[in-house]
């Protein structure tokens, strides 16, 4: 037990910090800051979903906001119609997952190459953007919910405690929920990546052909991973819609999609912690830049991306990990009697 904890000290430390923040922050921050931090956490969940499918699955999803936005709109429309939030939340997870599964089926079983996967996913989110954007007017509604076109959907019901529609979550409860979801997603993905499925998924990223030669169905692994990513992005979208009680077509925009990719590139594709932290840091930075008129926030983000692509192409987390590896205990298997083995290994 103690050995296992020591071997995974990084995860244990992350869990402790996360738990401390979940309990401590509501007592320290004022309401405004707590709301801001909550949305950064929602972005971190979104970043994790792309970190999983892109960083580990090697699926170049350029239009990840499609699933985020679909989750948000699904929740909004379902919650307005149903007047409670539990079923809409489930739908906001399942519908994007189903969309990802359907799209993934055609892309992966049709052996579409990586570049075109990028193009197709980007196109997908732009289709959503244009369709939703042009549905202003009373004739476009689903049940009681007006889709609202470029005006978006206002007055989306907040989340309520399951089975009690009148008992809505206050900002503190919402913060704790988002933090808990973030930790569940983070540790869930960690656990998943340690299973055979997760390890084979990484192998698919490395060499799809070899995975097939070993008897694994690479297409199925990508499909399942893509669907899980879609589900998590949808969940983040649901939280986002309920956080601001508002959603607009901009959620499907290129800017939103690009932002997720920037979080991933800066934090480090191939890690979970990196994109998660960089999503929070960059969202904070974007918000700060928004308070002044001197430079455009988009330009700064672009510059940051350029700097990272040129100078730290693997992102923050791998770089920091390499610098730290000498100072911290690393989970390693015992050294082998390698020389001896090499000597007697002659067949």
């Amino acid at each position: 037990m103690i050995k296992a904890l020591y071997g995974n000290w990084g995860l244990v430390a992350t869990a402790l910090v996360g738990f401390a923040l979940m309990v401590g922050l509501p007592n320290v921050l004022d309401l405004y800051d707590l709301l801001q931090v909550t949305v950064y956490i929602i972005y971190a969940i979104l970043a994790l979903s792309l970190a999983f499918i892109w960083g580990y699955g090697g699926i170049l999803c350029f239009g990840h906001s499609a699933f985020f936005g679909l989750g948000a709109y699904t929740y909004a429309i379902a919650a307005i119609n149903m007047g409670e939030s539990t079923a809409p939340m489930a739908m906001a997870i399942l519908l994007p997952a189903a969309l990802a599964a359907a799209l993934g089926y055609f892309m992966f079983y049709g052996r579409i190459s990586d570049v075109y996967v990028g193009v197709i996913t980007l196109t997908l989110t732009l289709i959503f953007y244009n369709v939703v954007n042009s549905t202003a007017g009373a004739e476009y509604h689903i049940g009681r919910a007006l889709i609202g076109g470029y005006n978006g959907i206002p007055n989306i019901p907040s989340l309520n405690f399951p089975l009690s529609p009148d008992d809505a979550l206050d900002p503190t409860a919402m913060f704790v929920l988002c933090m808990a979801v973030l930790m569940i997603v983070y540790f869930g993905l960690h656990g998943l990546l340690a299973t055979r499925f997760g390890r084979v998924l990484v192998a698919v990223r490395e060499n799809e052909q070899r995975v097939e030669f070993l008897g694994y169905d690479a297409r199925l692994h990508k499909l399942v991973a893509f669907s899980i990513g879609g589900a998590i992005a949808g969940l983040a979208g649901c939280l986002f819609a309920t956080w601001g009680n508002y959603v607009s077509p901009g959620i499907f925009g290129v800017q939103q999609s690009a932002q997720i990719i920037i979080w991933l590139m800066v934090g480090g594709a191939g890690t979970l912690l990196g994109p998660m932290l960089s999503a929070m840091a960059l969202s904070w930075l974007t918000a700060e830049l928004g308070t002044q008129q001197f430079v455009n926030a988009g330009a700064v983000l672009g510059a940051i991306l350029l700097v990272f692509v040129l100078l730290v192409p693997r992102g923050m987390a791998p770089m920091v990990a390499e610098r730290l590896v000498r100072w911290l205990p690393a989970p390693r298997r015992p050294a082998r009697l390698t020389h001896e083995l090499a000597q007697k290994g002659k067949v």
Partner: protein
Amino acid sequence: MSPPLIQTRGLTKNFGGVQAVRDVDFSLAEGELRCLIGPNGAGKSTFFKLLTGQLKPTSGSVLLRGKEITRLHAHEIARLGIGIKTQVPSVFNGLSTHDNLWIAAARHHGRRAAARVVEEQIERLALGLFADQPVGQLAHGHRQWVELGLVLCGDPDLILLDEPAAGLTEEERVRTAALIRDINRSHPLIVVEHDMSFIRTIARHITVFDRGTILMEGDVGQVFGNQAVRDVYLGKRVAA
């Protein structure tokens, strides 16, 4: 009589107007080690890819122990017990040697058994020094052996090797040849190879390809002594 381990009937592959493989009837018995040779463009590699499901034939069929496998996907063919080593080492460059082999072993074994199989292969291939290193950082020869290890971890019924000696140093070639002979004690093999001196060290039976068809089949002595083979491929210098 039991059916041959692997057999092709009238196997043909066209690329546009070019017939890369033309009406090939080939069969391999259990336990055999067969070398496929032939000049560049003879259709060896295409034939190899047809056997492994990387390419689908224009016509004809491939049978594994009498069972049709022609239209199966590469991973389904692999599951039936065919292990493949490609010409350019096809490995997981970003993963360590250990993790590479684990992926292969975990297909067939549970956690504990997979760990044991991996250790066995690391020892057999003398890759202990590199067990924790990313395979992408290893020398070409070691990558070739890691790939051989990937194939062996699956304990396949039939092993196909595409130019296993390509790009190896003399010393590495000697070891690879020894490995192949050792593997053949328990596994039938088909080896596509260019290198004549390497062929001589491992081959018993040889199939010679020329212009998409089988020119001749026979044991080493017959093939190297055959005038037609010399003309298309070996040249008098090698055969002498």
